[in-house]
């Protein structure tokens, strides 16, 4: 069987006291389009363990992470191999709902540690202060000129969703920007 290679398969994870950077490959990602006021939206929320978040820029986490992408659009993220599409399809039934597996579209980079906000702020115009962008917030924006989805987690953790073809560039950029936060001599070549 052919081996599956993630976009950042050759990326060496960074692990320092204040900053950790690593790819989380092969997460299941489903793009969901549905009228938020419809019965189907409510049913899908029940199936996923939490109502679809309707406040812009917010994310819920239950059986899967559900990120607000637009007024009628969400990104549903689950563990590798989690058949979210089947769960959502079963809940949607025959209703007018768009369900698309986009797992291969983006890979995910985890940026964790007390320096995560400082690092991302090198290339992101959003206010990432926890008062504004704390756990449960998400945003589609630009990071170092690449389009990304940012999701804030507990304990200064972030998930950076980046298109597969931009992942190598963004990983290089993150390593370069991280240099000042890492102990001297840390190997950050890819």
């Amino acid at each position: 069987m052919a081996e599956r290679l993630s976009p950042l398969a050759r990326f060496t994870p960074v692990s320092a006291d204040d900053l950790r950077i690593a790819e989380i490959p092969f997460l299941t990602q489903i793009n969901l389009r549905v009228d938020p006021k419809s019965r189907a939206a409510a049913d899908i929320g029940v199936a996923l363990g939490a109502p679809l978040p309707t406040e812009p820029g917010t994310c819920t986490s239950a059986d899967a992470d559900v990120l607000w992408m637009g007024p009628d659009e969400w990104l549903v993220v689950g563990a590798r191999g989690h058949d979210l599409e089947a769960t959502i399809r079963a809940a949607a039934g025959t209703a007018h709902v768009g369900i698309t597996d986009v797992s291969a579209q983006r890979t995910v980079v985890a940026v964790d540690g007390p320096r995560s906000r400082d690092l991302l702020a090198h290339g992101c115009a959003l206010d990432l202060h926890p008062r504004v962008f704390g756990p449960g917030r998400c945003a589609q924006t630009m990071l170092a000129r690449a389009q990304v989805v940012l999701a804030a987690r507990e304990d200064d953790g972030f998930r950076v969703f980046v298109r597969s073809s931009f992942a190598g560039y963004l990983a290089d950029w993150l390593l370069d920007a991280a240099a000042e936060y890492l102990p001297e001599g840390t190997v950050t070549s890819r």
Partner: protein
Amino acid sequence: MLLIPCPWCGPRDEAEFHYGGQAHVAYPENPAALSDEEWARYLFFRDNPKGRFAERWNHTAGCRRWFNAVRNTATNEIEAGEVTA
């Protein structure tokens, strides 16, 4: 750089947006009935005011929704965006 208020995402850098030109330009009800000159007027002729100007913007790097905003072409001040279909 302009800070443009997306009605969904809030204020974001201009670089996240695509400009859509003048707002409220209605598609002709019966395009086939238009003369070439009328069709050209619909396609190419736009207002060019000094002052308040209603414009279409798309938040391409964000929620990817279209909205209208009023920009003052003399000062670049932008009034809050409005959700459109």
